[in-house]
């Protein structure tokens, strides 16, 4: 029908398409298209172009745009074409504008008028074309312009128009829910439309509406159930059948809606049980579409109020999916399993081996889905296995997007279920090592905080052991090349804080390592800042411990280099370090107490000790405090300048700097109280974690800088209250990373869980590797379930251990038998080159046969032979399907049996065509040859490049 009578385009255009077809590279294609663009630009503006010619230009523009080039110069001509009275041109114009323009394009305004006119047309095809454009082009602003007409069209006599009007309203709803909120009753009404197509279309907006507001649609449950019942009972016209399923797409949509309506509603769910149960029982699991419906049933069953029978049926379908050889079904099975375990965690147990298989499958998609499932079923008992697996996979993938996702999942699981601190640290190390740049910096802060705080228990020995192991692991890792910045920050901080704490490593060893880091990553200022602060801490601890300070020459040169750094932040840190090492042991211990990063300090944000100073200043004629919003930038230039430099290093030019007072340098009372008072360190809410708290400086020069100190205090008082409002947990002198960490994430995993000592070594003797893995994944899962209900920890441990074991051995029986027995009669529907399918499943569906046809390696040789066979047999088959014959498409009669035959005539076909499914497609080869000849006649000869072009898509 379509291709008869030539392709309807000029030779010029056909040549273009042909040359694109023969282009050997993308760049060649681009060259051709650029030339075409030049031609079109020139031609399209010529005066008096015949309309037919213009139409072709527009289609050529579509072609250019489709191949990824910019055809915007011609948009206006497409818009003009929509104005044409001729439907042929109008249709082309609408097609082009819907492809060219997004809804926010300026030209839309020029089309709205045409659309309005066309919506009123008495030719329904014009209305349809306009409605297509409405769905694509009308935006929030222009909805009111067409809304009344679209609503009117809901009552149009042609069902195609009603259907498109519904879809247009749906689109309006998506764009601006308020615009159609008064029309909801129309959607309800259209649900009763006597055309099933309109009814089916109405389900789309209803689904969206119900997603937002379930309650007001509860009354429709009965209607939906009854529609679904009628659909499954084949009350709809035959033309809605698809592969012998009655209107499966409508069924799926209905199931989706029922899932929403029945969620957490016992009464509504009760009304659905029967119809869903029937559907699951009757549904044909041998076709792909049947499985699509079954999958939707499972989704529905797991969403509505639980019903044991339905859940059992769902579990059964899942096990069929998982046992299938078809990867698509496995994928759906894994997904469905993830839904079902939310209701009944035990379901997973019987499928453990299938899940493990999927986990080790070469198909990445399946693997990821399986990880998603594992993520859902993680418990404290199996977290180690799962997270280790995830990390292994994370290391292997390159996809940036997915790596980020899986890394954050690992972190989430580890934080939630970590069985021990040691494991947590090791796990985080791995995540950081391989995906450090992808995880949130907060994760690094959490880790530092965890190491600093321990796990909240008063077990200092365990804490220090934890730190020692962390230090040890970092010293090992730090030599690896190319570590992510966030991880290096953690390493430097931990080494600085705890590197020398247990005495296993000398200060010079640790400082050497830190220096190496700073040198190796010299372009990363944050890391360098962490490194030099770590050096300062180690030296301070050495001095405080009374040991002789021995600064390595490399450290010395690093400090000097940083003291001359362009970054003022680094400079300050370097100078502070130099100041600290000159102090005596007592002073150093006060400003840099060992392991004090978690100590709480109290801050009085009103700074009462400054009151007298303020009073005095005012009396001496100083200006009173001006509220922040009344202050102008110029005012604060001088008074803030002394802190400015701390910020500039990280932010470059900062335009609003003068309006945002810096966090005050912590002020302190007169130096006398240095050794006794806690020093308030306000934590600036926007600061980086690398700020070194400067009291060091002020301490060292405290005697002489009375004035400066007070000035700081004044600012503190005048500064934004928010800056100092949160008391932080640091003993003023230790650098702030710990502060930052504790502030950022107060709800970190500080509760430790008893470590799971579950071991599966016993099973390992009898079971293969996989079962071991399965046991640790699933056996553990059931165990922890049981433990949760029991009060006695130890007793339950013992008992649950045995149940875990037994469940494994129990489930291993059916699964091994599954391996041995021939594949289940779920045919491999979608695999292209699967020749065995047809022999395994004699009663397979037509769809599968279609798939078989795709095996194009064989089609050529059998084609001509089969053509004879099938021409002889076509009438037989077609006579079985007189209903289809009525439709009168001769050319489609070869395909129609394919799409609607029953198993009996399939057998017939089998015998006629001698078991070769290609037989049916014989005539297509002829047609392909005809097409070939036709194209050649027109002087286009693309066959040389790609003979596949002529291959029937179905064969």
């Amino acid at each position, binding site marked *: *029908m379509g*291709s008869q009578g030539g392709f309807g385009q000029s030779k010029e255009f056909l040549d273009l398409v042909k040359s694109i077809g023969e282009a050997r590279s993308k760049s060649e294609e681009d060259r051709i298209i650029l030339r075409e663009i030049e031609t079109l630009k020139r031609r399209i503006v010529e005066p008096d172009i015949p309309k037919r010619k213009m139409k072709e230009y527009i289609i050529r523009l579509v072609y250019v745009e489709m191949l990824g080039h910019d055809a915007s110069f011609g948009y206006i001509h497409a818009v003009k074409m929509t104005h044409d009275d001729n439907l042929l041109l109008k249709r082309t114009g609408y097609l082009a504008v819907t492809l060219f323009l997004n809804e926010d394009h300026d030209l839309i305004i020029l089309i709205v008028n045409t659309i309005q006119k066309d919506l009123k047309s008495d030719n329904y095809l014009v209305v349809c074309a306009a409605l297509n454009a409405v769905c694509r082009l009308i935006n929030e602003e222009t909805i009111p312009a067409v809304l009344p007409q679209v609503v009117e069209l809901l009552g149009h006599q042609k069902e195609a128009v009603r259907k*498109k009007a519904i879809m247009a309203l749906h689109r309006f709803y998506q764009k601006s829910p308020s615009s159609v909120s008064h029309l909801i009753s129309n959607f309800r009404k259209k649900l009763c439309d006597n055309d099933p197509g309109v009814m089916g279309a109405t389900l*789309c907006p209803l689904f969206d509406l119900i997603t937002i507001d379930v309650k007001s649609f509860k009354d429709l449950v009965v209607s939906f159930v009854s529609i679904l019942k009628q659909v499954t009972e084949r009350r709809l016209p035959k033309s809605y059948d698809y592969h012998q399923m009655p*209107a*499966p*797409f409508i069924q799926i949509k209905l199931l989706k809606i029922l899932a929403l309506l029945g969620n957490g509603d016992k009464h509504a769910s009760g009304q659905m049980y029967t119809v869903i149960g029937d559907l699951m029982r009757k549904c044909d699991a041998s076709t792909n579409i049947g499985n699509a419906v079954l999958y939707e049933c499972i989704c529905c069953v797991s969403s509505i109020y639980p019903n044991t029978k339905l859940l059992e049926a769902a579990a059964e379908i899942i096990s069929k999916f998982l046992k299938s050889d078809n990867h698509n079904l496995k994928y759906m099975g894994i997904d469905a399993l993830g839904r079902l375990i939310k209701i009944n965690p035990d379901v997973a147990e019987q499928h453990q081996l299938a899940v493990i298989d999927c986990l080790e499958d070469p198909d990445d998609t399946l693997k990821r889905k399986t990880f998603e499932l594992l993520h859902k079923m993680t418990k404290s008992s199996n977290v180690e296995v799962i997270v280790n697996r995830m990390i292994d996979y994370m290391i292997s993938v390159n996809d940036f997007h997915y790596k980020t996702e899986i890394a954050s999942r690992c972190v989430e699981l580890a934080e939630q279920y970590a069985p021990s601190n040691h494991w947590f640290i090791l796990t985080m190390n791995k995540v950081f090592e391989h995906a450090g740049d992808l995880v949130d910096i907060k994760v690094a802060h959490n880790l530092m905080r965890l190491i600093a705080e321990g796990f909240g228990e008063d077990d200092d020995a365990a804490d220090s052991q934890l730190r020692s192991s962390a230090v040890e692991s970092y010293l090992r890792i730090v030599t690896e090349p190319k570590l992510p910045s966030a991880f290096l920050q953690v390493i430097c901080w931990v080494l600085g804080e705890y590197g020398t704490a247990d005495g296993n490593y000398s200060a010079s060893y640790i400082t050497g390592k830190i220096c190496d880091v700073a040198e190796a990553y010299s372009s990363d200022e944050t890391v360098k800042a962490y490194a030099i602060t770590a050096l300062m801490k180690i030296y301070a601890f050495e001095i405080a411990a009374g040991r002789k300070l021995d600064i390595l020459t490399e450290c010395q040169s690093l400090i000097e280099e940083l003291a001359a750094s362009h970054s003022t932040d680094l400079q300050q840190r370097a100078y502070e370090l130099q100041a600290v090492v000159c102090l005596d042991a007592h002073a150093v211990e006060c400003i840099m107490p060992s392991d004090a990063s978690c100590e709480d300090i109290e801050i009085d944000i009103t700074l009462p000790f400054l009151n007298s100073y303020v009073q005095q200043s005012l009396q001496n004629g100083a200006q009173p405090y001006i509220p922040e919003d009344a202050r102008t930038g110029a005012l604060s230039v001088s008074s803030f300048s002394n802190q400015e430099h701390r910020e500039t290093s990280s932010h470059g030019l900062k335009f609003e700097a003068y309006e945002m007072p810096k966090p005050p340098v912590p002020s302190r009372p007169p130096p006398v109280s240095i050794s006794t008072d806690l020093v308030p360190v306000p934590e600036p809410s926007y600061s980086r974690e690398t700020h070194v708290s400067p009291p060091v400086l002020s301490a060292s020069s405290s005697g002489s800088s009375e004035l400066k100190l007070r000035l700081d205090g004044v600012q503190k008082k005048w500064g934004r209250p928010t800056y100092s409002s949160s008391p932080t947990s640091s003993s003023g002198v230790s650098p702030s990373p710990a502060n930052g960490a504790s502030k950022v994430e107060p709800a970190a995993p500080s509760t430790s869980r008893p470590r799971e000592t579950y071991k599966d070594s016993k099973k390992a003797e009898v079971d293969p590797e996989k079962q071991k893995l399965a046991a640790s994944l699933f056996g553990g899962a059931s165990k922890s379930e049981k433990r949760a209900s029991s009060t006695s920890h130890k007793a339950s441990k013992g008992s649950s251990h045995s149940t875990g074991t037994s469940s494994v051995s129990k489930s291993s029986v059916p699964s091994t038998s599954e391996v041995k027995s021939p594949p289940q009669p779920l045919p491999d529907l979608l695999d292209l080159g699967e020749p065995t399918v047809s022999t395994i499943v004699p009663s397979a569906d037509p769809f599968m046969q279609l798939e078989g046809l795709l095996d194009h390696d064989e089609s050529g040789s059998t084609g001509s032979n089969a053509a004879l066979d099938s021409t002889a047999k076509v009438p037989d088959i077609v006579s079985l399907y007189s209903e289809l014959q009525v439709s009168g498409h001769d050319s489609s009669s070869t395909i129609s049996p394919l799409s609607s035959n029953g198993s009996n005539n399939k057998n017939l076909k089998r015998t006629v065509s001698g078991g070769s499914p290609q037989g049916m497609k014989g005539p297509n080869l002829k047609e392909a040859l005809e097409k070939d000849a036709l194209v050649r006649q027109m002087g286009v000869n693309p066959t040389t490049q790609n003979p596949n072009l002529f291959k029937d898509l*179905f064969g």
Partner: protein
Amino acid sequence: MIHFVVLISRQGKVRLTKWYSPYSQKERTKVIRELSGLVLNRGPKLSNFVEWRGLKVVYKRYASLYFCMCIDPEDNELEILEIIHHYVEILDRYFGSVCELDLIYNFHKAYYVLDELLIAGELQESSKKTIARLIAAQDSLVEAAKEEANSISNIIAQATK
């Protein structure tokens, strides 16, 4: 919701693109490049789904042509697979044993068919017959218009002789 439909040949050539969500021309090019790398390199026995940028792409190969649809994570992949097949069946009926060449030279007709099947990223009609009837009605009008135009131009041609 379907975000876009892309038809790519085995050689990575674009045969049809339809975008239901807003993508700039630059993004479109990038999307197609990424997708063809992802889809064309997959083995034959693997599943027909690919996770991509937090969305899912369902694809199916017919002869040397890949039909890809990008959908939301919560959509039913098997259903989409059948929508693809549904589309191919309709094309097959329309063109009469459709082959890639039909789509190359008549891509605009493939668009018209797609517009009757999907609208705003949703399936609007699941009856092949209805779609076939609508397309046929449009085509017959087009044919009529052509004849009319011819006859008018004939008349003019004769009148001006």
